[in-house]
């Protein structure tokens, strides 16, 4: 494990293929190749050279680009699998997932569910895949960026002949009027914004070195992005709640520690109207029947004043009125409230008239607030109605008893006791929507249904995400890195005097076409020949493939 000292005097780390300073080939088998491998400047990738302990073995595993690519490919395939059927979060909540998949997609759906693909993206193995990519990003980058930095820093102007000869662009010209040619070349190199270094009459012109750092910059961005994703799991960083709020209702906003309250003044649903909206839309509106134009909740945001504990009537101070629309959330502190769903026409009040079944004579009306019914409604003149039982979301259970499924008045039903002067004991009637049962025989009176009053309910998403800025930062750095690596090229041109000849070699990390054109302009009328593309020549000789 000794360092390698090159003929030129530079000391290279063990495993170096090309001397960092002069480019001389240090590895024997590399000498047989027609062109040198310039990928990492022939630097010593440490991971390849130390492989003793378990730590080194793990390190080397993740340091391999091959492993990295496999991880990417496996993640890619796994991600695709998750789109075959909808994920659990997107299935309608009509039945449990284990039933739904089989019901909708048959045995394939059942298999999908049993393999856990219905929740693929939060499964432990998918997270592990993404995490492995993250680890691979860190280790691959560390393992390459340091040697690359060393090599690019240590490079000398004068390069070994063997190095120049084995560059893809390489040419030899006879040296005549060298002074003059050099001046012309340098002039043109400067015009092309090359950074020029000279040493013993040799030239190294270089530009765009910073594009070599592009991949590492974008990897840093990705790592920051992944850290942001990871922080989401830290309690308090991320809030995802749904808040259902009726028109007219004031409610505490979840996760704000009882600090903020919201009042829903009104929910609005608008659809496009063929006659009112732009004429060009009329065909589309006709074809699809109804196209939603706007979902909006008009709300008032309140902040609690002073200290109060949960359950106490808080003293509220208005913060602002706002209209929450899709694409226009209401923001306060770190929170945002989004218009995400709604329920139209939830029953709110029902009106009945106490009626004589025979004569149809009415003895007064009563309106029941379905969210807060009273026990007794006095209609005057000795007539009154008692609510014996109330089922806001009525159904019959297995034993035939009336029960309620929830507290929401989706299907209200009542047991009324009608007290009248001629029936002072009262008559009992079970009243549900389109259904009346008289359990104790034929009644004289009935509760005639008169009308309903409804309210809309807004479904708002309460969101807090303190990781957003980290994720944005990661995304920004990633984009900078990708652009840096993609849109700039690292180009180098070496010109060296060897005896009576001028050797020219060129290297670029990509876009050889551009480098060739540039060299041809630079060397035009200088007496130095354009270097040949040795790869292309090789291809031509071997017949094109």
């Amino acid at each position, binding site marked *: 494990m000794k360092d390698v000292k090159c003929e030129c005097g530079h000391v290279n780390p063990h495993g170096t293929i090309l001397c960092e300073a002069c480019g001389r080939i240090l590895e024997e088998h590399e000498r047989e190749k027609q062109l040198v491998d310039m990928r990492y400047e022939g630097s010593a990738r440490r991971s390849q050279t130390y492989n003793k302990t378990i730590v080194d073995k*793990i390190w080397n595993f993740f340091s391999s680009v091959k492993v990295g690519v496999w991880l990417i490919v496996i993640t890619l395939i796994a991600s695709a699998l998750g789109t075959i059927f909808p994920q659990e979060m997107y299935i309608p909540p009509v039945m449990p997932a284990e039933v739904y998949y089989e019901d909708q997609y048959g045995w394939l759906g059942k298999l999908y569910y049993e393999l856990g693909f219905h929740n693929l993206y939060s499964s432990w193995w998918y997270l592990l895949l993404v995490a492995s990519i993250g680890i691979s990003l860190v280790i691959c980058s560390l393992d390459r960026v340091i040697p690359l930095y060393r090599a690019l820093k240590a490079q000398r102007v004068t390069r070994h002949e063997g190095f120049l000869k084995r560059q893809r662009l390489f040419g030899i010209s006879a040296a005549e009027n060298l002074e003059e040619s050099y001046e012309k070349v340098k002039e043109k190199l400067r015009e092309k914004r090359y950074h020029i270094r000279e040493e013993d009459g040799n030239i190294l012109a270089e530009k765009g070195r910073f594009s070599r750092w592009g991949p590492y910059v974008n990897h840093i961005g990705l790592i920051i992005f992944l850290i942001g994703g990871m922080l989401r799991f830290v309690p308090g960083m991320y809030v995802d709640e749904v808040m259902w709020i009726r028109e007219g209702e004031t409610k505490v906003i979840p996760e704000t520690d009882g600090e903020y309250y919201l009042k829903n003044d009104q929910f609005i649903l608008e659809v496009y109207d063929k006659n009112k909206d732009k004429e060009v839309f009329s065909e589309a509106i006709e074809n699809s029947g109804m196209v939603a134009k706007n979902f909006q909740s008009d709300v008032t945001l309140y902040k609690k004043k002073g200290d109060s504990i949960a359950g106490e009537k808080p003293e509220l101070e208005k913060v602002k009125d706002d209209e929450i629309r899709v694409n226009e959330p209401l923001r306060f502190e770190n929170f945002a409230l989004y218009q995400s769903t709604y329920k139209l026409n939830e029953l709110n009040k029902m009106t009945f008239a106490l009626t004589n079944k025979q004569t149809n004579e009415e003895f007064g009306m009563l309106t029941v607030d379905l969210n807060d019914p009273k026990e007794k409604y006095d209609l005057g003149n000795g007539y009154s109605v008692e609510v014996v039982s109330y089922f806001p979301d009525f159904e019959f259970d297995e034993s035939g008893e009336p029960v309620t499924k929830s507290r929401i008045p989706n299907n209200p039903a009542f047991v009324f006791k009608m007290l009248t002067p001629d029936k002072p004991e009262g008559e009992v009637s079970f009243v549900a929507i389109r259904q009346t049962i008289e359990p104790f025989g034929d009644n004289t009176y009935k509760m005639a249904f008169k009308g309903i009053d409804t309210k809309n309910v807004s479904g708002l998403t309460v969101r807090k995400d303190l990781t957003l800025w980290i994720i944005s930062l990661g995304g920004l750095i990633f984009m900078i890195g990708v652009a840096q690596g993609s849109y700039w090229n690292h180009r180098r041109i070496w010109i060296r005097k060897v005896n009576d000849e001028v050797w020219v070699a060129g290297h670029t990390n990509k876009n050889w076409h551009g480098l060739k054109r540039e060299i041809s302009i630079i060397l035009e009328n200088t007496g130095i020949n354009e270097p040949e593309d040795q790869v292309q020549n090789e291809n031509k000789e071997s017949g094109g493939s």
Partner: protein
Amino acid sequence: MKKKRLMIRAVILLLLGAAVAYTLYANFTKDDVQKAVVGEKAPDFVLEDMNGKKHRLSDYEGQGVLLNFWGTWCKPCEKEMPYLNNQYKQFKDKGVTILAVNVAESELAIQKFADRHNLEFPILKDTDSQVMTAYKIGPLPATYMIDKEGKIVKYHTGQLTEDMIKDLMEQVKP
């Protein structure tokens, strides 16, 4: 030199491994992130019962409290009500009480339910769901056991048997 490299590698791998392990762990426990955590002080609240009397949780310090969240439509809640009622009678003189918080139902619905089951313990009305939100109640019934210092010692969702209730109440007896 070699030692140093090994150390650096080990530390980096360890850090990465720890981050991954934490993420996996957090991902699988995220569903039961509680607002009211066992071992910590129960969030205070004040609610009215059916007779209009105010009950403040912190006023019960010095006693054990079984705090039960329920709804009339919830079958398991209904099943455990008679057991709660029985144990309430057993324990009320031993310094353990029951506070049953109904989640935002109408007074009528609660009253009819309470009459039907002859419930004697105080039933608190959380009309605008403030307390429910503060405790981040999910599925019902949800039961918290609070000791005489006002600390939560136990949390349970789902139906309780009479033996379980008795056992729980023993635990918070002052």
